[in-house]
């Protein structure tokens, strides 16, 4: 009896839920990050549906105004802080040690600690839903004075601030861990100019985190001082300055956009290379453009504040325009990689192409709003909402789904069903554009954002109705993805053992180990003599053509 009890306890520690609670292995921590962020994506997606139902027709009252404010605040906060960025960190956690030939992250226990405070931070943000007064409702930016004690007295706002502090602490620690791992723990032969572009993009992302996140910490702690010690930092009659909060927030906030999109660029680069069956075109251009984007992104924060009249418009406008140049270099290199390649339109590649089309629209509208005369006209309208959803939804989210399809076989040893994958892609592409293209037209027509309801002006009701239909299609599309996971894993045994490189064109080192990889990643590392060691291993006859 006692022996059986010990044995089942042992099993629980080795394989059950306890093993996940105490794990420090980078692959398991990475999976925890990705699963958690996808769960937050589900919740934030549900909140988006609530927003769309409220706006389906003029003068609707599906939810109360206060609940609506909480819903759009939590939707934005969750998508940005709890889904897009953490998913990338999770994928980086999983892939970076594999791609550079390391056995684990530099600081495995710090890695696990970072994950757990991220999870607790996320739950804390949503914890506001269970307290009197409701959750934070000042928008994802938490602008003062909307977030000060006079206008948001409830505990929900405190929990929003404290949750974000925890999430930011997690991100900063992850950044330190990943930077040290990439710079120090590369395998022999894996020089910096041989690491995959995804690793470079992750490295640049985490440099940005180290530069930008202190400003968010200052903003959030200032809010706490304001709320609990009466600091009056943002209260103009007492000599405070509400615009200062905007400076602090956007000094973090604009780089944060690139914290979300740079890893997505890395995912797209890897996908395009594998599914074009070609070495990546312009490796150094891709790396240097990531640095260019990062540097410029630190110098454009006040373009979010043109209409305050308190910033130097020409400087921030010029710097914002300039970001289009390194971003264009990335686009050029992706297209050149595909050019004359042996392109196979598998689901990851479809998502990559979808990413390029959507992100292009997001980027072009970004250049438009970098121009103050246009920005003054569309500021706080649905045009801006459409713009940043094309960047982060049509961009980063499509990259994330592409990455999930590409690396799913590596992580789980199971390939997702291609037919369901393509159904997922096309429904997502159609649904996404049905939501956000009409939104752009509404913005140009003058519909303000963050409004609870709107008047019955010509065309507004129809366009909003179309958007809600699009949101429903996105929801169905996500259900198809979940169904795909369930169905593919039901037939997993038929696929096993899966090849090390199930796509047949894998270049980086993760494709040189088993699917899924062993605990410390490699039984034996292949020689690393070029930028695509896995390809050299599987196709030695072409190794001489690999870029060194």
């Amino acid at each position: 009896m006692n022996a059986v009890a010990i044995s089942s306890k042992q099993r629980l520690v080795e394989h059950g839920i306890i093993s996940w609670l105490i794990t420090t292995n980078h692959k398991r921590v990475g999976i925890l990050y990705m699963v958690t962020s996808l769960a937050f994506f589900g919740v934030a997606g549900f909140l988006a549906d609530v927003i769309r139902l409220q706006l389906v027709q003029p003068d609707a009252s599906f939810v109360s105004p206060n609940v609506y404010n909480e819903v759009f605040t939590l939707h934005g906060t969750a998508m940005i802080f709890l889904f897009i960025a953490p998913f990338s960190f999770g994928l980086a956690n999983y892939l970076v040690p594999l791609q550079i030939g390391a056995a684990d992250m530099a600081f495995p226990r710090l890695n696990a600690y970072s994950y757990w405070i991220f999870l607790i931070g996320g739950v804390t943000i949503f914890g506001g839903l269970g307290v009197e007064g409701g959750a934070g409702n000042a928008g994802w930016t938490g602008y003062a004075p909307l977030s000060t004690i006079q206008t948001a007295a409830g505990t929900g706002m405190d929990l929003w601030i404290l949750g974000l502090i925890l999430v930011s602490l997690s991100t900063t620690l992850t950044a330190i861990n990943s930077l040290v791992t990439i710079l120090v723990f590369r395998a022999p032969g894996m020089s910096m100019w041989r690491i995959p572009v995804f690793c470079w993009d992750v490295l640049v992302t985490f440099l940005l985190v180290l530069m930008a996140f202190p400003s968010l910490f200052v903003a959030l702690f200032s809010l706490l001082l304001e709320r609990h010690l009466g600091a009056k930092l943002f209260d103009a009659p007492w000599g405070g300055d509400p615009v200062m909060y905007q400076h602090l927030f956007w000094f973090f906030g604009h780089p944060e956009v690139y914290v979300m999109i740079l890893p997505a660029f890395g995912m797209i680069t890897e996908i395009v290379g594998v599914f074009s069956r070609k070495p990546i075109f312009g490796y150094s251009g891709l790396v240097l453009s990531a640095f260019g984007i990062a540097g410029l992104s630190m110098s454009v924060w006040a373009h979010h504040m043109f209409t305050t009249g308190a910033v130097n418009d020409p400087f921030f406008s010029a710097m914002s325009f300039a970001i289009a140049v390194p971003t264009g270099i990335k686009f050029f290199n992706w297209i050149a990689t595909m050019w004359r390649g042996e392109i196979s339109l598998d689901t990851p590649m479809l998502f990559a192409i979808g990413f390029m089309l959507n992100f292009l629209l997001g980027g072009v509208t970004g250049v438009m709003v970098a121009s103050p005369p246009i920005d003054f006209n569309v500021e706080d309208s649905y045009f801006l909402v459409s713009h940043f959803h094309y960047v982060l939804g049509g961009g980063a989210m499509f990259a994330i789904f592409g990455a999930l399809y590409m690396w799913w076989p590596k992580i789980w040893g199971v390939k997702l069903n291609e037919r369901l994958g393509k159904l997922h892609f096309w429904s997502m592409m159609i649904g996404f554009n049905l939501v956000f293209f009409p939104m752009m037209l509404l913005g140009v027509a003058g519909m303000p954002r963050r409004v609870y309801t709107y008047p019955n002006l010509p065309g507004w009701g129809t366009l909003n109705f179309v958007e809600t239909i699009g949101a429903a299609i996105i929801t169905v599309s996500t259900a198809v993805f979940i169904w795909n996971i369930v169905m593919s894993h039901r037939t997993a045994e038929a696929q096993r053992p899966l090849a090390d490189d199930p796509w047949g064109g894998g270049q980086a080192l993760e494709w040189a180990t088993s699917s899924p990889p062993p605990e410390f990643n490699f039984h034996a590392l292949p020689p690393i003599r070029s930028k695509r060691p896995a390809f050299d291993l599987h196709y030695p006859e072409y190794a001489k053509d690999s870029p060194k």
Partner: protein
Amino acid sequence: MKISIKMFSFAMVFGLVICAAYWFDTGDAPGTVFLGFMAIGFLWVVLYLFGSRKTTTYDGDEERLPSELAGEHIAVVSSESPWPILLAITTSAFLIGTVLHPMLGFFAIVCFFIVVWQLAREST
């Protein structure tokens, strides 16, 4: 190592240039201080890397080493530990408690130090 020094040096120079450009164009002190901090942060990293360049070597920079040696020095680390999750719980309880419930904050900081002590014991 060389590439790390170069990378952070270029970032530092960029920070300085953008800081100076911003100051001369706008005369805005808070923004200049933000950008100045960015350059100073990178300067600190460059100085550290420059100071340790002779005593530090990275396996990855040795292009001719056999790659079978990779990871030897970190694979000895156990892939399980109960302390990170406990540390995360105590950190969060301390932060949230300090703001919303001081008794919880006090209790959490005591637990926090106990967990840190255990973590340090495990590390050694």
